[in-house]
């Protein structure tokens, strides 16, 4: 599901332009596609940290937390659920990056 998710994120970035063609219809379709992808991800097997990272990005998007994985300064205004999720997602991103750095020989 990673390629599909990245394509949806690219579409979302394109729709950030207020002059994008057919913006409203595309945004509605995008929201539906994201929900369908989330549902598919939730019933699928989670095999490794890369799969967990995808679920983190999906949860981040569902909660509309901004640019993954940057935690905004006003996160605590969003309530304890959002704060807890944001730090878990950030933790997954950091752990994944740490594992990748080891793989690349950039860390021990």
């Amino acid at each position, binding site marked *: 599901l990673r390629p599909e998710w990245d394509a949806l994120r690219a579409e979302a970035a394109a729709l950030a332009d207020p002059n994008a063609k057919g913006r409203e219809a595309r945004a509605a379709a995008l929201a539906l596609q994201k*929900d369908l992808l*989330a*549902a598919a*991800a*939730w*019933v699928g097997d*989670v*095999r*490794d*940290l*890369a*799969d*967990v990272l995808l*679920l*983190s990005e*999906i*949860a981040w998007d*569902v*909660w509309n937390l901004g640019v993954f994985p940057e935690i905004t300064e006003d996160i605590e205004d969003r309530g*304890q*659920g*959002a*704060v*807890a*999720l944001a*730090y*878990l*997602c*950030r*933790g*997954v991103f*950091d*752990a*994944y990056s*740490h*594992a*990748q750095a*080891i*793989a690349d020989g950039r860390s021990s």
Partner: protein
Amino acid sequence: MTDRIAACAAEIVALINASPRTPRVDEIAAIIARAAAPAALAEDPLAQRWERALAELHAGMDGPAQDGEVHELEERLAEATLAIWRRGARSVADLPLFARLAREWGCADFKANLVPSREGLDEQSVAQLVNAVLSVTAA
């Protein structure tokens, strides 16, 4: 060699034999994290502080503690939680603790939210992520 380490080694061998391709580092790291997580958390002062604060709060809520005392225990748990978040996850071994924090603070009915539904996608997303972290790290 402990049973846990032997099981970890067997999982890595099984992973290597499961496919003609070389396993990725994060796949092997997840297996090692499963073996290391309990020890890592047991040696983490912030995790110990959080466990203590949570146990004290539960004891306070179940016992004769007054409202003011319970509030103080809640504050202590919140401070212990914030200290962990501010430090961040140092490796995969820290993720089970972060998942527990999210489950404690962000998912009122964890099991119910693991059941797919068209309603409440926000809490479902937390439950699914927490479940995935605990599954991959086998915490």
